[in-house]
Every structure is written in C-alpha cells, then in structure tokens.
C-alpha cells in the first residue's frame, strides 16, 4: 500500500543522507521525497511516499525513528489528511489544440504559466491521482516535458503535528 510519511529531523548536514542511506541499505523503495526547513529553521521536514506491506511500513517507521537526527515520524496515511503535489507540464500547443488545452487546464483547475507560439507550460496541483488523470487525458505526442514536486501532506483539522 502507498504511504505518505512525514519525518521531522535536525536541519543539519548529513541528516537527509541518513534517511536516504537507510532506504537504500534496507531495500525500501522511495516513490518521492521532498525536504525543506520548517517554521523552526533548526528542523527540516521530509515528506516521503513509499510502498510496502504493513510489516514493511512498520519497519520503515521504526528504523526512521531510530535515526539519531530524527525527532518525529508520522504516517499521514493512518488518518485523515490532505495530499498535494505540484506538477508542471510543458506541452505542444498548436492550432485548435490551444483552445482545447486551455479548456482541459480549466477543468483540472490548473493554470497556464508560460506561453509561446507552439507551446504552453501548465501548472497543476492536486493529489497523485488527479495529476495522473491529467497526464492520461493528454496524448503522448502532446507532452514535451513533465516535472513533479513529489507529494506533500498535512493532517486535517486545526491541531498541528508536534515536531518532536
């Protein structure tokens, strides 16, 4: 099953490498990983997406918790959460396709953020499934380039997750 895991860790040299090394050394897969400082600049927050059986996910969380630089690990998938990912797609946009692509972008509540005589760059945010759905509506010849940020996730409701 797909899990979105938030990891708070010391914003120190090598901390991210420890997480990456752990996944490589123990053979866990990483589907995506994003990292940035939190509101407390001494802490970073990683959001990573991984897949595995309940047993594997349990081990991943335990092993992450064991890392000395890690202050907190939360499996967002365990509760109600919001997932967002940013995607930018550079597409071929010529002739009648231009209006069609604009319409499609509106349906997906995206925006065109760069425009040329023969291309658009479309920005879309959403969960994994929505971004995949958008890609599927375009045919392969249309897409010139795709870049995705990897998923971010946050628990619903007012209460923040403590970072340690």
């Amino acid at each position: 099953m797909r899990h979105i895991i938030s990891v708070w860790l010391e914003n120190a040299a090598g901390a991210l490498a420890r997480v990456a090394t752990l996944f490589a050394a123990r053979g866990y897969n990483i589907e995506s990983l994003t990292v940035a400082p939190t509101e407390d600049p001494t802490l970073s927050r990683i959001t990573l997406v991984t897949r595995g059986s309940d047993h594997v996910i349990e081990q991943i969380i335990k092993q992450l918790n064991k890392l000395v630089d890690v202050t907190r690990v939360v499996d967002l998938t365990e509760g109600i959460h919001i997932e967002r990912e940013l995607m930018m797609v550079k597409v071929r946009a010529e002739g009648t396709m231009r209006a069609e692509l604009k319409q499609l972008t509106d349906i997906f509540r995206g925006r065109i953020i760069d425009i040329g005589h023969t291309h658009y760059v479309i920005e879309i945010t959403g969960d994994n499934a929505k971004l995949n759905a958008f890609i599927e509506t375009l045919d392969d010849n249309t897409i010139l380039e795709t870049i995705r940020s990897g998923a971010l996730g946050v628990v619903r409701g007012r209460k923040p997750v403590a970072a340690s």
Partner: protein
Amino acid sequence: MNLSGAEIVVQTLQDEGVDYIWGYPGGAVLHIYDALFQQDQIRHILVRHEQGATHAADGYARATGKTGVVLVTSGPGATNAVTGIATAHMDSVPMVVISGQVPTPVIGSDAFQEVDTVGITRPCVKHNFLVKRLEDIATTLKKAFYIAATGRPGPVVVDIPKDITDPNIRIPYTCPDTLQMRSYNPMVKGHVGQAHKAVELILQAQRPVIYTGGGVILGEASDILREFVKLTGFPITSTLMGLGAYPGTDAQFLGMLGMHGTYEANMAMHEADLLIAIGARFDDRVTGQVAEFCPHARIIHIDVDPASIAKTVRVDIPIVGQVHQVLSDITARLRPQRDQISQTALDVWWQQIATWRAVQSLAYQPGDTVIKPQAAVETLYQVTRDHDFYLTSDVGQHQMFAAQFYPFDQPRRWINSGGLGTMGFGLPAAMGVQQAFPEATVACITGEASIQMCIQELATCRQYDLPVKIVLLNNGYMGMVRQWQEFFYDSRYSHSYVDALPDFCKLAESFGHVGLRITDPADLEGAYREAFAQKDRLVFLDIVVDPAENVYPMIKAGQGHHEMHLSPNLTTERELA
C-alpha cells in the same frame, strides 16, 4: 582555562573517565597525539593495524561494559577501522571512534589521505559526526559517549578535521554538563500493561521456553534473569551472543540454539507453546526458516530497540524497554501468582526435553591418535574452569565448538563476533580484555585461517606485556568453509585449504612469545597446564586437530528447527527418540 582543540579532545576523554585508547597515529591526528603525549591519565595502546584497534576496544567494552575508545587518522586509518566498527555495530557494542580528517578548507578536494569517513561509516554506526568548529568538539564528544552507551549501544564515529585541533588556536574550555538532544531519547521503562499481559501468558504456558540473547548481557540483566528462570522453572536456551548470561552448567539450560544449537534447544523451540524472547533479535542463524519458526508458540519479546521487535518474526506481546527493568517488573508481578503455573504440564514438558537430551546431539567420536577439536575445547574447560577466565574467539568451526563445549557461567566471559562474523577479531579482542583485567586468564580460541588476519598484533602483545593464551585449533582448512563445501558443493574444496602455513611456534617466538605445538591427544592437557602456568607470557598453542571434523548439529539454510542434521555417528533410533 584556554585549551586547543587537541587538548579539548584529551580533556573530554579524561572527563568521560576513559582509561585506555587504542590507536595508530597519522598526519591528521598528530595534534591530538601530541596532546596525549603530554598527559598521563589516559593510556594509549599502539596497535599494528587500525582493525586491531577497533577489535581491542571492542573486547575491552564487551568484557567491562564500558565504552571502548579508538583513535585513528584520516583516509586509510579510518577505512582500516571500518571492519571493527561494523563488528561492534552488529553486536551492539558501545564504542567511540575518533578519526582525524583533512583540514576543513580542503575537505572535498580529494586531499592527501582524505576519505568521506562520515559517509563511509554511516550505514555501520549508531551515529556519526563531522565536527566543523573548535567550539563544538567537547559537546560532540560528550554526545558521542552518551549515544554509544545508552539505549541499544553501538559505535559512534567522531570525525575531527586537523585544523580545529591546531595547538595555536585556543579557546576557554568548560565541560558541558547537560546535553540538549531533542531527537534522541532512548526508551527506558517498559509498558506496564504489556508486562501484565506477559505474566498472564506465562501463567497459562504448558510448554514454555526462555530464549535469551546478547541484550541480557548488554543490559546487565544476568542476575534478574537467573531469578526469573528459577522462579518459573522454565527451560532456557541462549543465542551465541547471550552465552554466560545464564549459567551454562545449570540443569535448566538447554545449550545454545540455532544453526549449530543442541537438539534439545531447537526441538524445544519447535514444540514450545510460549516463547519468552529476552534481548534477542531473531537473527537468521537462530530462526532458520522463518516460516517454520516456533509454529505453535505465542511470543513475548522484550527488547530495548523497538526496531528489533517484529522485524523478522511476528510477536504477540512486544515490550520495549530496558531488559533489566522489564524483567524485574515481570518477576515481581509473577512471584505472588507463581503457583498458578501448572506444575504437571511443566513436568511433562521436562520429560519430553529429557528424551531430546538423551540424543546427546553434541556427542563425537573421541580420537586416540588425532586431537578432536571438541576435545581440545573440553580439555580447555577442565584446565581453566577454576581460573578467572575470559575466552575470546575468532570466527568459524572453532567458534562453534567453543560455544557448544565451553559452558560459561558468568556474563561478559565469552567474547566473539556474532553478527558480522569477523575473522581476525579474537586476538585483538583478547588484548583489550587483558588490558582491562591484567590479573585474569585470557585466552583466544582461533583457527589457522582467522589468526592470520590480525596476527600482527602479536607485536602489540609483546610491547604491552599482554600474556594472552592463543589456542589455535589447526586443521589446515578454513573449517567452516570446508564443511559447507563438503555438504553443499560435493566436497569440492575451492580455496578453503590453507596452504603454506607458517611455523606458528617460530612465528610466536620471533615476536618474543612462547610457542607450543601439540599433535598427540595425550599431550593436550599437559600442554594447556604448562601454557596457563606461564602467567606473564603469551603462549601460542598450535594444536593440530582432526582436519575432517564437522560441527553438528546443523540446520541447513531454508530448514526449520525440527529438521536438524545430527552427527552421522548418532543412530537413527536416537534421532527419532
């Protein structure tokens, strides 16, 4: 008081109560070596290879429970230490390794003797640090000692660039008294509700087995374990790493379990209805085929490391906490209810175990003309049982024979590389033990292949007058490799023959030691007595043993505990008993 970085390193080690450091100098640590030279509180032991330094510090740590300390230079100094660091990591040994690094301005420029020590050691340490500022040396070292020794212990590497130990740059030194570590809180107290549930299972058990590991020794829980075992009357088995936590000579002890465990220990595991795992991690050498592991048992697992629980085997009652505290709690709860354990069921269970014991799975054909390795260990036990005795081991058949035939009655007396299986561990580890306990009898059991991996440390033993006894079971083969080739490769002994062996007696003598070669079984005991009587000399016993002997019983890969291969000398009737 203004101190240089090098002096701060030494001062911090003194503040931590460090008495010995094992190390080897080099460019990046010259400032630190100069500071060491100008004090006499910490004794530095000069090894002949950095691997030896780590194993010596490791042996010291395993025997004393204190943290072993190592000092090596950058580049090859650090990479040579990696095997010893990984060895300590696998067996959860507290160790602090200080490595020199090239000066901060040239880090990353492929400078002379530069490697990314933090990067190389990251997967095989509990934690590591690269210290970038002089101001951070003291707190970082203090953190290193704290992390190494608490929770599930392990090695911590502190990489210190040369420029921040410069004797010309000095800062005021104050010993940091508190540590701010929001991200590291080793769990101490076990969950009360879980202990309660464990007691309920213990009271209902019909066929219980206690299975203990190195965590009992690391957690100083040997006394409370003995109390618990006596209170319950349950049978107990141990992993290779846990030997000595419970007396090997006691009637409730079934011997070691696992790949080369006894028949009774492994059969009891297979038939048990309750398994009480204490400070053990369900290693593959213990479980055999996981799908066949303890098929009838409910499992209680006590461990300080949450990640060890349910890693390979599902567990019914996990209890995360210090083994000593959890076991004390369970024992105290159990005592007033002890009578609820069914004595009838327990009697039936012990009768069953007696039939497995009757198989005598460790029995071997004694040799009249050739020394059997098993007999070499049994005789060693007879000669040293009344000594204040420590036995370190290398890796291979001799290690298994020692584990099977030398019953350890006290913890921290059996010192071997279990998890990583590091050949070359035994001799330097024995040096560390002997350094810690100069009056004790320390022996290293080894093979002619293992001993050659760190044999240069014979010079260190000479320099520091370490009267270690080397018990070399010389069978002319890498015995365990040969055994596997016999079983699984149709006796094609590919590169397992140790040809061109040195004359070990002459070799030992050339280092200033005493060498004895024993080939006749009749001479064995006398030679041991002669060797162990030489209290202030290193004696190298080159014991020529049967080259064809195998370690039995054996559980082959992919098989369960009930599918042990017994010695071909045992009859089928016995096997079926």
